[in-house]
């Protein structure tokens, strides 16, 4: 067992911190307030290899690994939760399933552009009536000669409108239930595919979250990802990986809120001394950091398992459950320690608290994570 960060990842963390502080942090407030998708930041992340981090160079990736990838999501989320989730959804939910389940032709066609960040990826599973109960898919795909015809809609899709490539799930055989769901690679410019209502959200406001609408969209049969009827398995496996990314986002938000709070409590004076000198402040900070450090170990462990090709489903669920609930608790305490100022937009902790809430909900709610973890325990 080795808990030391190796030299590569240590150097990577130096680069990520530098990039996040210089390129991402100065924009975070505006990205949130104006709901501005950070297009330029995505281009910059692409230029330095961050959009294809865990994939080999042969497919256009940076030749890194999942540990490096979660460090990137963590570093970006520390200063901007929006940037963190854009990176996570693109990498874990779109590029990763193509890398894992794509045919050689699909990989060749889609992966290099995604991994180099020339194209942005998204993932469409959730529907108005199929959230946690993902099996209730209403979107259909009917084989017609050499293509499938897709009809239906998807809801709450991250990166929608800015993404070029979407992994979309649809029923190819309703009679088979979950075994009748298939996955497709859909391109944004396929006729009949449009973006619907954009959600107005509590947090991660710069990330684009929209409805996807499919009206007789002809998707080539060659774009079926995996086998017909294999979509549910792909969705669940992909979400296992995605959870590590969201756990890293939560981890970053928690650490970011702590860093802001440490700086604040040293400056803020009450009763003639800095509030850092009060034992309540000290104990709160210690609790916040201890939980965040524990979350970090869980997140890195899940990523390392994935890198080692070991099972990581339960590890990912555990990491996401603990990191997201830690993020919510820590950011709430951060606002409390900032007092009245913490509730204003003058300080970033209120944004971090709003951003943290979603990590307990998307890519499997905390309740779903508890189901995954306990099911393994009671088996």
């Amino acid at each position, binding site marked *: 067992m080795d808990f030391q960060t190796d030299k*590569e990842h240590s*150097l990577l963390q130096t*680069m990520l911190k530098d*990039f996040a502080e210089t390129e991402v942090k100065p924009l975070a407030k505006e990205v949130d307030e104006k709901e501005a998708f950070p297009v330029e930041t995505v281009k910059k992340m692409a230029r330095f*290899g961050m959009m294809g*981090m865990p994939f080999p160079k042969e497919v256009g990736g940076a030749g*890194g690994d999942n540990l490096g990838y979660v460090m990137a999501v963590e570093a970006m989320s520390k200063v901007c939760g929006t940037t963190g989730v854009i990176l996570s959804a693109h990498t874990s939910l779109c590029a990763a399933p193509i890398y894992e389940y794509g045919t050689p032709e699909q990989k060749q066609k889609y992966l290099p552009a995604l991994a180099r960040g020339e194209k942005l990826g998204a993932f469409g599973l959730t529907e108005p009536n199929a959230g946690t109960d993902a099996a209730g898919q209403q979107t259909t795909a009917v084989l017609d000669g050499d293509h499938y015809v897709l009809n239906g809609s998807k809801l709450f899709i991250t990166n929608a409108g800015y993404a070029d490539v979407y992994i979309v799930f649809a029923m190819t055989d309703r009679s088979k239930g979950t075994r009748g769901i298939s996955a497709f690679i859909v391109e944004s410019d396929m006729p009949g595919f449009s973006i619907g209502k954009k959600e107005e959200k509590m947090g991660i406001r710069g990330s684009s979250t929209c409805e996807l609408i499919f009206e007789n969209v002809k998707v080539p049969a060659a774009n079926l990802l995996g086998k017909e009827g294999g979509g549910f398995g792909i969705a669940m496996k992909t979400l296992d990986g995605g959870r590590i990314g969201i756990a890293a986002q939560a981890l970053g938000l928690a650490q970011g809120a702590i860093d802001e709070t440490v700086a604040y409590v040293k400056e803020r004076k009450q009763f003639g001394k800095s509030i850092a000198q009060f034992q309540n402040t000290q104990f709160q900070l210690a609790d916040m950091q201890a939980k965040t450090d524990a979350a970090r170990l869980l997140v890195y462990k899940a990523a390392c398992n994935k890198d080692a090709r070991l099972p990581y489903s339960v590890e990912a669920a555990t990491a996401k459950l603990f990191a997201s609930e830690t993020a919510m608790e820590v950011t709430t305490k951060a606002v409390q320690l900032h007092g009245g100022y913490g509730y204003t937009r003058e300080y970033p902790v209120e944004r971090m608290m709003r951003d943290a809430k979603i990590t307990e909900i998307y890519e499997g709610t905390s309740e779903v994570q508890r189901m995954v973890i306990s099911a393994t325990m009671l088996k």
Partner: protein
Amino acid sequence: MNIVVCMKQVPDTTEVKIDPVTGTLIREGIPSIINPDDKSGLEAALVLKERVGAKVTVLSMGPPQADLALREALAMGADEAVLLSDRAFGGADTWATSTTIAAALRKLGFDLIICGRQAIDGDTAQVGPQIAEHLSLPQVSYVSELELAGDSVVVKRTFEDGYQRIKVKLPCLLTTLKDMNSPRYMSVAGIFDAYKKDVQVWGLADIVVDEANIGLKGSPTRVKKSFTKGAKSAGKVYEVDPKEGARIIVEALKEKFVI
């Protein structure tokens, strides 16, 4: 074209603390970085590499920990890295340092040598020019722009109150200013490759050099005293007319025997 960039690893602060007893730098607890002027020199070399094709080698002298600065340079895009590290090189002043680095450069071969103007921990600005002298090379210091022109480089040499545009034939040595560019970030692919590459470590046995001119023994410089400048007092503010102001200033200067 072979470009060699000479780099120093320095403590990441402009307010270096000095041990009052020994007069040496306290390096503990301060993260190390590539000296800013050197990093801009590396960026200039990497831009040349992209434009006209070149092999960029980074060369540093220092303790084994300086490996990190060289890995960072590799992750930014340098092709090879050499670290001069040997107890025999320790305690070197600028003379001994430049003697040692010049010996390594003779072994490496070069068309263009780029050094940062000066290091933020020592601020001497002597090592670059001394290397040029050891190697009998033309040199231009304070470079803020750099372009290749056939078998020469055209550079902008910047002063506080003006600049010179100079054409200098290769091989030559340039010292660069940190303001000349914004060094790129390391790339993710570069980082993972940096540790697959080999940083060559050269000791005394690997270079041809006169041992009387290296290390502490080969350093003619003697440090009499090092100290941190005391804080300036707040000063006095007079809100008076210019004539009265001039009178007060003259009086104050006389009081201090400046005039």
